[in-house]
């Protein structure tokens, strides 16, 4: 029995490396994407975003503020403008991504006890730079203002400078980032995308090879061979095993190689990783087995899943919380393994979670596997019985 099963497994695995479409999807895609996708984020964080300052005050204090801004790591003060229109044009030209306006009479107003507002304008299309530029300018403004406020408190309350400082900021906060400590953008995006690469290439690959279908037309010379036309359980589980073993190697490759190359934290313990691999790959393989019986052409799965890759990535909620999406979308996301695999992978691999911590996601993928297994077997059975003459599968 095992011999028959392994024969089907080996025959299918061989196909991964001999069928040109399969090689591309099941072998090359997993490697190429893992190195290609993270390349935009090689620098990991955005530093020295080009910005400008419109200095309408032109005093010692405004120059001090410019100096403080120049010292900020997140921004690079490229230009100091005399009027606002120049700054607007520079932002439209793409030379700068934001600018701060130092108002006329800033120093005079501060020295006479009035309140001054510094307006910072960032380019609305670049949300990441908005945060960085805003924080850098706000910190400069706050630092300059702090000196003045401490002096005012000391004079008003008749207290020494140390007490004035304590009164200004009585309980300072200290932020400790538990995971992704450097605020790396690649560390935030790429792990989720890696899981998606595995799922998408696996499903598309299974669809391209026809899942558990018998007499696959594209195997022209071998479509009548024994391994190709084993009984349904052998075909289904034998081929599934080939996909499972192949993709388990990919998970190991990502864990040991890709994570090292891109310097991602690798906190996954062996047992949770194995459990993750089993439930995630089972759910994805069985979903692929279901879908492969629906398509008549080898490339249909690829065409459809390429369109769906962006919605599927966002439905995994790696960036936008699940509770903020419409209910029907949340319900729809329940059919995709990636919706649970991405948070499970992040918990286990990025945060070092154990099986118990990630169980909420692992159990759901387990349920998906069982449902898709039943459906996959049923559809393969029906496909075996049908006499469709169209298509190439």
């Amino acid at each position, binding site marked *: 029995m095992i011999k028959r099963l392994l024969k089907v497994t080996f025959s299918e695995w061989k196909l991964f490396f001999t069928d040109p479409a399969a090689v591309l999807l099941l072998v090359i895609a997993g490697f190429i994407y893992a190195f290609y996708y993270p390349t935009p984020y090689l620098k990991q964080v955005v530093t020295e975003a080009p910005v400008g300052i419109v200095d309408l005050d032109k005093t010692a204090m405004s120059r001090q503020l410019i100096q403080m801004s120049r010292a900020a790591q997140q921004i690079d003060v490229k230009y100091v403008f005399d009027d606002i229109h120049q700054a607007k044009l520079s932002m439209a030209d793409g030379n700068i991504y934001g600018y701060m306006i130092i108002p006329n009479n800033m120093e005079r107003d501060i020295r006479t006890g009035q309140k001054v*507002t510094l307006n*910072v304008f960032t380019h609305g299309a670049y949300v990441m730079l908005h945060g960085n530029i805003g924080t850098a300018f706000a910190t400069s403004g*706050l630092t300059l203002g702090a000196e003045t406020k401490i002096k005012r408190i000391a004079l008003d309350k008749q207290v020494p400078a140390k007490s004035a400082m304590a009164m200004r900021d009585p309980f300072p906060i*200290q932020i*400790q980032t538990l995971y992704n400590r450097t605020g790396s953008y690649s560390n935030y995006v790429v792990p989720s995308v890696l899981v998606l690469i595995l799922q998408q290439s696996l499903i598309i690959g299974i669809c391209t090879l026809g899942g558990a279908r018998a007499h696959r037309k594209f195997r022209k010379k071998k479509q009548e061979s024994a391994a190709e036309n084993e009984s349904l359980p052998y075909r289904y589980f034998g081929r599934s095993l080939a996909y499972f073993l192949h993709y388990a190697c990919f998970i190991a490759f990502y864990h040991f190689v890709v994570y090292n190359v891109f310097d991602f934290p690798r906190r996954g313990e062996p047992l949770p990783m194995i459990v993750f691999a089993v439930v995630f790959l089972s759910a994805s393989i069985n979903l692929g087995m279901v879908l492969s019986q629906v398509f008549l052409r080898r490339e249909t799965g690829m065409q459809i899943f390429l369109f769906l890759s962006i919605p599927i990535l966002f439905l995994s909620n790696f960036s936008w919380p699940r509770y903020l999406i419409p209910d029907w979308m949340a319900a729809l996301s329940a059919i995709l393994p990636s919706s649970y695999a991405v948070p499970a992978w992040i918990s286990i691999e990025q945060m070092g979670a154990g099986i118990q911590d990630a169980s*909420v996601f692992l159990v759901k993928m387990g349920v998906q596997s069982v449902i898709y297994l039943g459906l996959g077997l049923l559809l393969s059975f029906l496909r075996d019985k049908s006499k469709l003459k169209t298509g190439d599968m």
Partner: protein
Amino acid sequence: MILLVLPVSTSIFMVHFFSAESIQRIPIGIIHYDYSKLSERLEYSLSANPVLDLKLHCSDFSECERGIRRGEIQAFIVIPYQFEKRVLRYETPVVPIYSNGQYYLTNMFALKEIRSVFSTIGSNLFTRHIKEPIKTEIHSVGNSTGNYQGYLGLGLVTSIFHMSSILIAVYVFSFPLRDRKTKEYIDAAGGSRMILWFASVVPLILISWFLMLAVYTYTHRFLAPLTLSEFIMVAAGQFAMVLACTGAGISFVGITGNMRMATSVAGVIGGPAFAFAGQTFPIIAMPFFVRCFAFLLPLTHLLKIQSQMILGDVGLIPSWDSLVILLGMGLFWHLLGGRLIFMRWKKWNHD
């Protein structure tokens, strides 16, 4: 399905995905080692903040840390022992805040709000009547409310049409090759490959362009309205991008000679294009060779035009360069694609 249903439905899907517009109700936790009026006040303010949702009261550090690992909370605050007493003695007790940097966006929003709550209460505690001398107001030009439905929606819609234009061209031009119908198609065009070319390309470009324009207009209602000249510039940019992408798709068919391989190439280039186009992670922060690749993507230039248009009263001049580049790309890809596909047609017509 590929020409109409999938591009429109996935685009509308993505726009509605962000219907909450901005991030709210971020779950956070708290550990109290001091039950005082001041700590209660802080807790009340955190609960009242619409961006935060004080969900978990932990008895110790490990309980809250587990909450983060399980995805139940995004951050937690530790109110230290004798917090109020130490504050009143001017000892400036430090309040540690532990956050999960893995979820970048929610982390950014959560920390911003927690900082704001603490600084508001802190600055009002002893020096309510002495205001901060300098206040900084941060404005996002063209997206004043920080609306993600508009900001990310527009980029994603454009990205989906970028990919769909390539895929549709691949499908239309590889279909006769796949189904061995090249001769039939050329015969239908009266034996003229030029007529077949135009009959295939023109409807393809026009349909994709109109669909994109319609979905873009639908999405843009979440942002400040465009003037007529700005709208025309965006429409021209979109036309040029569709032109370039269809040309690229035809070239992929011409190079590979079959639908499956051409679709794979289209997927490799079009799939992750949004990551390279600079809207989420700026191009200036990418390595040089990646910037070169980003420059070759039509999506990069159209996103540049679209983002310039949301800035308002700066005129159209800054966008001309991007438009010219897109048109140049369109011309190049169509000349290349035309040459290659004509050769394929000739070969298959004879076969």
